[in-house]
């Protein structure tokens, strides 16, 4: 069955069961992936997946939901029946409706259409990449974590009032994590991830080069003295920390009492006036973009922080109704509709006179810690409390030299961090999770072994 046929099937089954109001979200995908081990194919994988989530409103307008991978006629009927039973337990205190924007026009990005290159080609490309990476430096002995995958999928949203949206796309991903070993030293590891619309679209050479350079740059390492340091966050690490604390902009989290913000936080000063942050799921560089969210609301660019102050929250249908605004295209379909950001864009605002522009990670000669990548986010971030304590990969710059930091954590408070931004470099860099320049922050605690 294609997505139109599934919609018809659901509509017929709902009529049969006398269910007047329903909607559904579905995804259908074909995925192919390969892993290699020193030139040999290790695991080759293909999967065909289908997931259907149906919501049903009962006569009291309470919602029930069911998710299934069975999209046969009987599977759809069973899902509708189960959702109807679940609606008896629907949340009476926070009703859910169709998004008022579920029929609005959507912007679909013009993207390159690709066809599957096939497992054999994926394998050939990955074998070549692994070999090149190992040959790039004598210390790189293996690439223990590697993979090349292609995914072709369709996302659908439809409801009983005639809304129907469907979006098909392809995506490919390459990751290479190299392991370097030198005599009498600990093994060091680093890597790179690249996305593309298809395997042919991925910049394999830059992935190899980046993985190699990053790994080699950590070969000469030293422990760092526990102290407070001037910090330069790489674009990737700054985006990681913003995403980890995105509950500050999340209306769902605010309603649930797990955000540092509250309903009246719009306009609250969070940071230097020089900082702007947007959520821009449709950004041309966002390979993972989708034109509508789980409730069918169109995706759009939304300003979260303007000149250091909170400008907007991200919403689902129900949170927008509670906040007396419109949905923003950030909902995930579920029994309790989730809200999450798409793609964060960080930039320097026009009000940037207070920045210490001499702080440039290429030229600054004073002492600072460069945080390349933050790890263990799920364990080290207390979003509801605003605190973090995270291991990182990075370097200590001192006396014009840089040395990799052996093992250390950076700890602090997100509000302190944002208030203590002392420079936002001019050049933005594209990462897999958004766009950001390098960001400098004064005085964060680093714990090391020394």
């Amino acid at each position, binding site marked *: 069955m294609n997505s139109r046929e599934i919609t018809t099937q659901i509509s017929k089954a709902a009529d049969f069961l006398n269910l007047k109001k329903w909607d559904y979200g579905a995804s259908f995908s074909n995925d192919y992936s390969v892993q290699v081990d020193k030139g040999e194919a290790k695991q080759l994988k293909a999967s065909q997946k289908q997931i259907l989530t149906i919501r049903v409103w009962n006569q009291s307008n309470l919602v029930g939901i069911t998710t299934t991978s069975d999209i046969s006629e009987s599977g759809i009927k069973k899902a509708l029946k189960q959702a109807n039973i679940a609606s008896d337990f629907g949340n009476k205190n926070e009703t859910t409706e169709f998004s008022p924007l579920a029929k609005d026009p959507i912007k679909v990005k013009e993207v390159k259409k690709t066809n599957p290159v096939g497992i054999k080609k994926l394998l050939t490309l990955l074998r070549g990449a692994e070999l090149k990476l190992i040959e790039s430096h004598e210390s790189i002995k293996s690439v223990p974590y590697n993979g090349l995958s292609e995914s072709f999928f369709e996302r659908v949203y439809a409801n009983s009032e005639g809304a129907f949206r469907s979006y098909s796309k392809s995506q490919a991903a390459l990751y290479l994590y190299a392991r370097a070993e030198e005599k009498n030293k600990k093994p060091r590891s680093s890597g790179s991830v690249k996305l593309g619309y298809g395997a042919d679209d991925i910049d394999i050479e830059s992935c190899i080069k980046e993985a190699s350079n990053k790994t080699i740059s950590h070969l000469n390492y030293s422990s760092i003295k*526990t102290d407070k340091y001037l910090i330069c966050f790489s674009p990737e690490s700054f985006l990681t920390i913003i995403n980890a604390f995105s509950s500050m902009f999340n209306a769902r989290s605010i309603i649930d009492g797990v955000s540092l913000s509250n309903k009246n936080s719009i306009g609250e000063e969070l940071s230097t006036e020089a900082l702007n942050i947007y959520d821009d799921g449709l950004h041309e560089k966002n390979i993972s973009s989708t034109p509508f969210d789980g409730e069918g609301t169109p995706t759009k660019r939304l300003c979260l922080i303007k000149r250091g102050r909170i400008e907007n929250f991200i919403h689902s249908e129900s949170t927008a109704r509670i906040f007396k605004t419109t949905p923003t295209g950030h909902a995930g379909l579920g029994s309790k509709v989730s809200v999450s950001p798409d793609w964060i864009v960080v930039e320097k605002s026009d009000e940037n006179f207070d920045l210490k522009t001499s702080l440039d990670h290429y030229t600054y000669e004073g002492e600072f810690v460069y945080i390349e990548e933050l790890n263990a986010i799920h364990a080290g971030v207390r979003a509801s409390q605003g605190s973090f*304590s995270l291991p990182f990969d990075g370097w200590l710059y001192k006396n014009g030299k840089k040395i990799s930091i052996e093992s250390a954590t950076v700890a602090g408070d997100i509000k302190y961090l944002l208030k203590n931004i002392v420079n936002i470099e001019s050049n933005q860099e594209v990462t897999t999770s958004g766009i950001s320049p390098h960001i400098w922050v004064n005085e964060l605690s680093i*714990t090391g072994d020394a």
Partner: protein
Amino acid sequence: MLSSQIKSNEIVFGSCNKDLLEEIIFYGIGLGADFVEIFIENTDNSSVLAEEDFITSVSPSFGRGAGIRIFKGKKDGFVSTNDLTKHGLMRSVSQAIEMLDITDNKREVFNGLNKHRDYSLSKKKWIKEVPSIHEISEKLLVSTKSLKKNNKIITRKGSYSRNLQEVIIASSDGTYVSDIRLHQTVGLNLIASDAQYRSSGSRRFGSSGMPNEFRLWDHEKAANDVFESSMNMLYADYVDAGQMPVVLANKFGGVIFHEACGHLLETTQIERGTTPFENKLNEKIAHESVTAIDEGISEGSFGSLSVDDEGMEPEKSVLIKDGILKKFISDRAGELRTGHKRTGSGRRQNYSFAAASRMRNTYIAKGEHSKEDLINSISEGLYCKSMGGGSVGATGQFNFAVEEGYLIKNGKLTSPVKGATLIGEAKEVMPKISMCGNDLELAPGFCGSISGSVNVTVGQPHIKVDSITVGGR
């Protein structure tokens, strides 16, 4: 005619599928596969969320699918599908064969499937015995109400999930088994707040194969525990960073051994060349006070199973005995690629993952000391009463958040501290576990790795680590 005698062109749960499964396996072997494995599942899951004094989410789900794995030499091809018809399964076999580029004429022998080992017989009643959504909802609401002990508690949550998984496993070595697995888990979370101070607390409980367990769960005790913990931490200062001795509490304290050492004893790590213990069998890798076990047989424990996802009954594996490395955790691919015998540890989240060597119930065995002995032996250090999550890097470095910690001064517990992170490497920390308590307890958890998220238990008695890096402010 009985349904079990009908020759079906589709997998039917609860019926005999032997002929169809044999046909699929014969097909794969005939195309040149060395080994064919079919894993089929049918799931029926439910989850319920209570927030404050209301049920805010009820989420049923069901599904079915198959994962087909073909080996040729040491390579394997894995295909997953939702199509359980003969045509769909054969197409998946063909796809796996094609991926592996099998062209040689060498044919393995397949003598048909062995006698059906049906572990599900006594378990079919479980679905009728598990609590209804109504019963679950009522108990969760009572539980969240129990968390409301003062006006500093600003957020209260209770969550329950039940996963019922029916599996059929058949492979070209004759394996033919069926099983039903039931996992239930319930958690309580709260956030406390007073002016600028905030703390949070959480506890999770879980069981396998015990339909009545949720009914027996002592929600009041759980609520008291998490409330007390969050109150203790509400006004806590940040810990000062540095090197110090620590005492790790029992139960979930075992997460560090699981993450930092247990994963390094899985054969998948040997295959990757990422474990420092690869060539250390029968060598000392830990302090002589440490004996560590991984098993899948403790009745009701969250990581227990009647049969693993490759059709092997789980064994009790003594991984480390008195500090000496004795065994690795192995699955079929691990045995093939590393030579370590299978331990009944081939596990996967669901049909869309190929099985891999994974831990089950993993714990450090009890020692002879009391908790007080451990604390009394430290003049200045940290007591980690409750651990949060953590991670292990590609080179074995680990980091774990301490959810509830107390300073130790002159052998006594003193003030609560927050923001602590334990940092180290298994190879360096294992020899520093110098004392083990006599109070071994297990705690349930979920472990995410190469074959998805699987149910596990972690555990240990109270243990003392002579020196470790504590991250703080």
